[in-house]
């Protein structure tokens, strides 16, 4: 019985998480998964915003526009950082749950909040510069 339980545990990936601690309450694991998915969706929303900035403005005013392109690239980069951070955070949280350590506070959330504020200001400037 013990061997039966241990063998699949060894095959679980990544080993960095499943090699330590013990199985937490399944509800916590599931909640952690949903939090990861919420972060991934946030990343997708950021990327969609980047592509949207480019697509809408290209339709309105054709031709190259460095300001517009840099805003789009900034949003895409934010999305990429956000998705990598989502996975990293999922790992950190799962490890903390397994070792019964305190859960670390979200580092990216305040950055994202302030960053989106900056993006909002940039989008407003872009709107004014392009004359609607």
């Amino acid at each position, binding site marked *: 019985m013990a061997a039966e339980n241990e063998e699949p545990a060894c095959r*679980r*990936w990544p080993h960095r998480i499943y090699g330590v601690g013990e199985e937490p309450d399944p*509800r916590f694991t*599931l909640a952690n998964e949903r939090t990861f*998915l919420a972060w*991934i969706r946030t990343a997708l929303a950021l990327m969609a915003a980047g592509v949207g900035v480019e*697509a809408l403005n290209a339709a309105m005013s054709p031709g190259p526009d460095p300001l517009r392109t840099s805003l789009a690239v900034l949003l*895409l980069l934010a999305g990429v950082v956000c998705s*990598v951070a989502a996975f990293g955070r999922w790992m950190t949280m799962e490890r903390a749950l397994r070792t019964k350590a305190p859960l670390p506070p979200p580092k990216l959330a305040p950055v994202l909040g302030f960053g989106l504020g900056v993006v909002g200001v940039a989008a407003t400037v872009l709107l004014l510069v392009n004359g609607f």
Partner: protein
Amino acid sequence: MQVERTTLAWLRTGLTFVVGLMVLLRLLAHRSAVAAAVCAAVALPLAAVIAVASWRRHRQAERNLRAAKPLPDGVLQAAFTALALLAGAIGAVYVLLM
């Protein structure tokens, strides 16, 4: 209920991916048909595999929870992250391709 809610979150995220990728590829096709075809050939099969894997994960989670066995591991999380990075790359191709 917890498993159900988590499965819905997986499916919702998967759906967002598929819809987002389709819109993005449609936009990209406007700028370069070749780039759109290449990106579609890479991204859409991956998205389909991930959709099937999400459903299988749900079945496994239900089964394991009943049998008091550990829940599924982190492979699908890594796959979603990879797909998000791919979507970001395709988005960058679109934005930078004038």
